[in-house]
């Protein structure tokens, strides 16, 4: 099914094969909704997941939507970049209701605002007041030292040679 890629390229988008069963599409932020809608109409009905990559040097978050077509046995990886500072993007819950849960997770761990998602309540973390923890500028070691009082040389009074015997 090479023609699906030609169709995507005709929409003025960058697309390339990663291997013989999956391809990636790079989409500007404004067109993400229409591209996902188009792919869904072209048999990519399965929404597999949404993840996020923190490109801290570039100052960008990259959102990765993974779709699957059961008819063509292909996987589509749709990527879009949004600014890292105060990140906002429209919610995809009108296309796949399932997106709501993934967006809730991304909201919690990266602090991304999904406009149109009614359900961005806290998800996994309990009573979280700090910077979202999976952002690369969040110092997990300093957090651990401060809250859990982690000490690197803590041996509970047992010296290493005794422990190894």
């Amino acid at each position, binding site marked *: 099914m090479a023609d699906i890629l030609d169709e995507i390229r005709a929409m003025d988008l960058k697309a390339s094969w990663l291997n013989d069963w999956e391809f990636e599409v790079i989409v500007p932020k404004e067109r993400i909704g229409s591209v996902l809608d188009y792919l869904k109409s072209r048999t990519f009905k399965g929404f597999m997941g949404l993840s996020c990559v923190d490109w801290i040097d570039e100052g960008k978050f990259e959102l990765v939507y993974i779709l699957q077509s059961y008819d063509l046995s292909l996987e589509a990886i749709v990527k879009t970049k949004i600014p*890292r*500072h*105060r*990140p*906002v993007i429209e919610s995809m819950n009108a296309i796949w209701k399932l997106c709501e849960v993934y967006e809730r997770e991304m909201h919690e761990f990266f*602090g*991304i*605002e999904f406009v149109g998602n009614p359900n961005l309540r806290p998800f*996994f*973390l*309990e*009573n979280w*007041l*700090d*910077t*979202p*923890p999976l*952002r690369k500028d*969040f*110092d*997990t*070691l*300093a*957090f*651990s030292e*401060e*809250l*859990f*009082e*982690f000490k*690197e040389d*803590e041996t*509970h009074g047992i010296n290493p040679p005794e*422990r190894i015997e």
Partner: protein
Amino acid sequence: MSEWTEIVDYFRGRSMWMLHYCTGCGAIELPPTMTSRWDMERFGITPMATPRQADILLITGYLAIKTLKRVIYTYEQMQPPKWVLGFGSCTINGGIYWDSYNVIERLDKYIPVDIYIAGCMPRPEAILDSFVKLKEMVQNGEAKGYEKYVKNYEWYKANQDKVLKRTKPVLERIEKVTKIG
């Protein structure tokens, strides 16, 4: 120690019911410990479904902030005498999650631990070894973690509240990066 407590401790050590808190990866070592290969029931230890009827709380591996709260609920529901076994290196010092934002480092700051089983993972032999050791300690009247918890409740409660009831950010927030406007 009176003769009566000596007799009671002797029998307590021979019939212990265990509640295993299996949110960590150590849970996988328990089925062989319980079943015919290693068969922990020959020491009088058997799994129990509810905290109120259990004597031993076995914590297998790492505890996130969310699960720590449930462990404390569970521990406080158990009737004394009760004993806690910390299983795996995650309960001792965080293990491989030593710099994690969500995993506690030392279990004995939040509830009293009678025996730690070191290792990642400890083998079923190590678990049985700790059961035998705990049995000896109970029969000699040494395992008194639950009394320690009552006596030092303020200290334990302060440690628990520091993690569970945070009211302000742990690290200084330089700027608001997430909200719009």
